[in-house]
């Protein structure tokens, strides 16, 4: 049986982890390579770097981060943020990433998903989605960090993504993100039931039980959190121990 995955996400700007993580024993505060190594030590099943660098020059810095991390951390690495073209995907994978995550760019140019999957394989292409519930009761897709409503129905979009050859979906709920009351289970369940590719839950984890809850109430494959792990409110190991007590299969 495949284990459910726990995935910490590191937001990186100009080569530094945003919000200055300060793990014990790490001298360089905010060094993404050291943070990734610490998450690896805690038992992270995968590590996501989300590049929030605005400038083009910043991309080179991000690739250096990936290159250095790949020399020290031997679990899958995913890189998202600012990936616009097939060349960006190639550069990122060559630097040592195992997958890329495309978000706004995929909404604006869905062909990027198909081209990426055809050239590098579906397993490399994760599509990140920010979505929010409408007054009508469905969900729509937002881009540019949740600022622009594309008025694109979420369930239509996830089916299209699957058709285009994406290997995985990382689903972030704008409604629950940062609220710390748990993942958006209705949205998550709707998406998991609509597609056959793995879905990663994102947005809303605030305490230990929220991860197990997502796995018990939906068939999501993984759960992701950023600030919860950044600020050492929980470790990956604690989350996994809680899942294990509840008979959820996680990697030891």
């Amino acid at each position: 049986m495949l284990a459910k995955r726990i995935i910490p996400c590191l937001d990186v700007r100009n080569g530094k982890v945003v919000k200055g993580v300060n793990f014990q024993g790490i001298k360089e505060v905010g060094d993404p390579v050291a943070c990734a190594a610490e998450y690896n030590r805690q038992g992270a099943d995968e590590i996501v770097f989300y590049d929030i660098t605005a400038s083009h020059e910043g991309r080179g810095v991000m690739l250096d981060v990936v290159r250095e991390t790949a020399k020290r951390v031997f679990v899958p690495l995913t890189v998202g943020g600012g990936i616009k073209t097939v060349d960006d995907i190639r550069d990122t994978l060559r630097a040592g990433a195992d997958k890329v995550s495309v978000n706004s760019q995929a909404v604006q140019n869905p062909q990027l998903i198909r081209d990426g999957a055809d050239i590098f394989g579906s397993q490399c292409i994760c599509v990140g989605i920010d979505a929010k519930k409408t007054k009508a009761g469905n969900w729509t897709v937002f881009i540019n960090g949740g600022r622009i409503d594309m008025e694109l129905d979420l369930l239509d979009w996830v089916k299209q993504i699957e058709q285009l050859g994406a290997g995985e979906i990382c689903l972030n709920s704008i409604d629950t993100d940062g609220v710390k009351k748990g993942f958006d289970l209705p949205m998550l369940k709707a998406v998991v039931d609509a597609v056959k590719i793995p879905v990663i839950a994102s947005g809303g984890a605030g305490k230990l039980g929220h991860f197990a809850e997502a796995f018990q109430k939906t068939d999501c494959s993984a759960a992701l959190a950023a600030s919860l792990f950044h600020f050492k409110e929980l470790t990956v190991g604690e989350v996994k121990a809680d899942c294990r007590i509840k008979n959820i299969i996680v990697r030891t």
Partner: protein
Amino acid sequence: MIAIIDYGAGNIFSVRNALNYLEIENQLTDDISVIEKADKILLPGVGAFPSAMKMLGNKNLIPVLKEQAQKKPFLGICLGMQMLLSKSYEFEECDGLNLISGTVDRIPAEDLIIPHMGWNKLEIQNDCPLLKNLPDDAYVYFVHSYMATCQDEKNLSAWVEYGGKVPALITDNKYVFGAQFHPEKSGEVGLQILRNFANL
């Protein structure tokens, strides 16, 4: 020195990073004389079976790999493992290196997500030197849509459960080993397996 066969397929840098991290001497090569001089051979691979075999053929590497596999430890990873077998049916019927008798077919699990991607637990079938010093629950990382079937169960060292038994580690019980998973992406367990290979 471990010769990592560089035939133009897949991500060979991760496995190189892992060997470098473990301070195991290695060299990326497609040079027959380097392969002949190496202590061990590692055949990586990501992609499709027919094109990978074609690339090995174009570089004239098939005879030297078959010959060296009778003389020194040889590890195939992922597609490199599948290429150890006799035949694959990925896209079209295609001959493999035939170092272990068996075939490669699509994972039959109809209700499950394909590719089989993620961490799965090794179930040990037969003792194998590559499985030394592992924890009881050893999870390793998989990404694949096709799987091996060995003709003889004695060639199967470990499998994982994914809609049935999916071969994870196979061997000719002499020099040749094949890992369907990626030891270079399987955390401490994977590093230990690479260490075990280097120590053969």
